[in-house]
């Protein structure tokens, strides 16, 4: 693996090929991509050292594809041991199916190969911004990335196994084990409709490389548009069921109140529903907070995404939301991927500025000033803000 920038250059080429009608946008965003590549200290932010919960620094969110080495890592128990070539690994498919399967990676790779870009964002991204504070890994803005995933359709594997019509949920289980016997296993399920969606993949490659171990190698689930808790890593077992999975990680964790509640209160379990689709969100990748700007033209740029549909506009404000200016917004290349945007800020005078960004999606949802509080701090999508000084 090249950690010095070759990967990024290859991604640049790919990004360029994708651009098509968005060539003009590419021309303005290109320098941004190179700027990020030129950053000297490639590192991740350890929200938690062990197990590995490491977020991507904001300056690496400026490219269309987030390089693997700076892509955020989320672990419940940490990765399983890394054994060269995964000699023991098999994928089993059983439950309510006519022909249970046990597949090697080579057998799986004989199925139709599909490649698509998609945003992976942790449900808890931005948890640290909620007040009152909630327990859990205190993620900032960087528990998100956009990668090109290559694999096979889960649908094809389920059809091969002869999925029966009585199956309503598909359970997914990884190789990673909890630290103590009393700790619940990380087991989840997705509704069968979502499992059969042609965009739902079993991925064995990430940005053209074999899926890195920290990101779930040899195989993980890809659910474009849905939060990361569904994107099961180190996948080894798929079970067709009539009901949702049992256990803490399906029935208690990754749930939000059905309707907004008063901050700091605890709703009854029956009023909680699973986190599924991501909500509309934008992030400012440049300038970074703390930047000192000495020019009269400042390129403000970033990314925006949503769970269903696409982002239709991104607006910027430098006066606390009194006036808004519409950014140039790139096309959505594939469902569940992010769109890059850019806006030229021309400060009339020196001073201290707070730059706000606010995305709106095709269903009409727009980022609120503060996200709706929920007990576990999921789906933060408050208007994004950075602070910079202008000295003209």
């Amino acid at each position: 693996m090249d950690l010095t920038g070759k990967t990024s250059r290859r991604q640049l080429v790919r990004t360029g090929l994708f651009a098509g009608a968005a060539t003009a946008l590419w021309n303005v965003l290109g320098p941004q991509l190179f700027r990020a590549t030129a950053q000297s200290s490639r590192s991740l932010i350890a929200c938690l050292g062990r197990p590995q919960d490491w977020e991507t620094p904001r300056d690496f969110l400026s490219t269309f594809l987030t390089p693997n080495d700076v892509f955020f890592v989320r672990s419940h128990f940490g990765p399983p041991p890394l054994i060269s070539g995964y000699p023991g690994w098999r994928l089993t498919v059983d439950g309510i199916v006519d022909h249970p399967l046990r597949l090697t990676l080579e057998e799986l790779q004989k199925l139709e190969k599909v490649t698509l870009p998609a945003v992976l964002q942790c449900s808890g991204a931005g948890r640290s911004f909620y007040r009152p504070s909630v327990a859990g890994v205190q993620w900032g803005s960087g528990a998100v990335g956009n990668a090109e995933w290559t694999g096979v359709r889960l649908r094809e594997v389920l059809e091969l196994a002869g999925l029966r019509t009585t199956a309503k949920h598909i359970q997914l289980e990884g190789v990673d084990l909890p630290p103590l016997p009393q700790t619940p296993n990380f087991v989840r399920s997705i509704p069968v409709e979502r499992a059969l969606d042609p965009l739902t993949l079993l991925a064995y490659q990430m940005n053209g490389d074999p899926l890195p171990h920290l990101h779930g190698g040899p195989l993980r689930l890809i659910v474009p548009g849905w939060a990361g808790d569904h994107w099961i890593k180190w996948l080894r077992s798929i079970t067709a069921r009539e009901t949702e999975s049992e256990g803490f990680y399906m029935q208690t964790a990754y749930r939000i109140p059905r309707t907004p509640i008063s901050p700091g209160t605890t709703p009854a379990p029956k009023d909680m529903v699973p986190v599924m689709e991501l909500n509309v969100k934008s992030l400012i990748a440049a300038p970074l907070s703390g930047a000192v700007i000495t020019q009269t033209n400042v390129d403000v740029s970033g990314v925006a995404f949503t769970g269903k549909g696409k982002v239709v506009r991104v607006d910027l404000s430098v006066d606390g939301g009194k006036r808004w200016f519409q950014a140039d917004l790139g096309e959505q290349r594939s469902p569940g991927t992010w769109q890059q945007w850019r806006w030229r800020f021309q400060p009339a005078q020196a001073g201290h500025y707070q730059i706000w960004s606010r995305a709106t999606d095709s269903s009409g949802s727009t980022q609120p000033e503060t996200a709706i509080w929920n007990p576990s701090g999921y789906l933060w999508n408050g208007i994004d803000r950075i602070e910079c000084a202008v000295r003209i």
Partner: protein
Amino acid sequence: MKPATLIFATLLSFCSLGTCMAQVASGPLDETSASRIVSRDCLLCHGEEMITQQHLAKAAWVKVLQKMQSWGSPISGGEIEPLATYLAGRYGPDSAMQEPVRIPVDNSAHPATPEGSAIQPGNANHGAELYANHCAACHGSNARGKVGPNLLTFFLSENADWQAVVLDGRREMPAWKGQLMASEVGDIRAWLLREANEIYKSR
């Protein structure tokens, strides 16, 4: 990646369990006693940042500690209340934000491309015997954790750390230097890797 600013750097205090219990009974926990409980009952599974990054009121800390107790943390029922009071004082809603540590991407803990360890069956057989005699009492006969944590984790993939922890000990884990040779520690690891390969095979 060892956060320098944390109080738990001074964890290996010499507070005996008896002393801790006496303080639980007589009033608020002092730093030494709290650190001792945290080291034994929290850092078993989590890095220190899991605690130091929080901003929770006492009631929320109690809830977290109760959940962790039900998940296998050895914390006793009587320790929850005083520890929650202590943690809410240090890491309460108004406490300062901690600056997180950066992990360089060329760090050995960050293998972007899998290489990993190979299975060595010969050594593994010897390792199985050694494991049963030296490790199983705390980590369980199947190595999936008992009072000591599950060993079939990524930790096995970090050979240098593995050797150091087994030979020198860490927190509640005794040092095995003098009783196990470095090669024997390697054999135990070889057996654990073979066991880990089994979990890849699914049910």
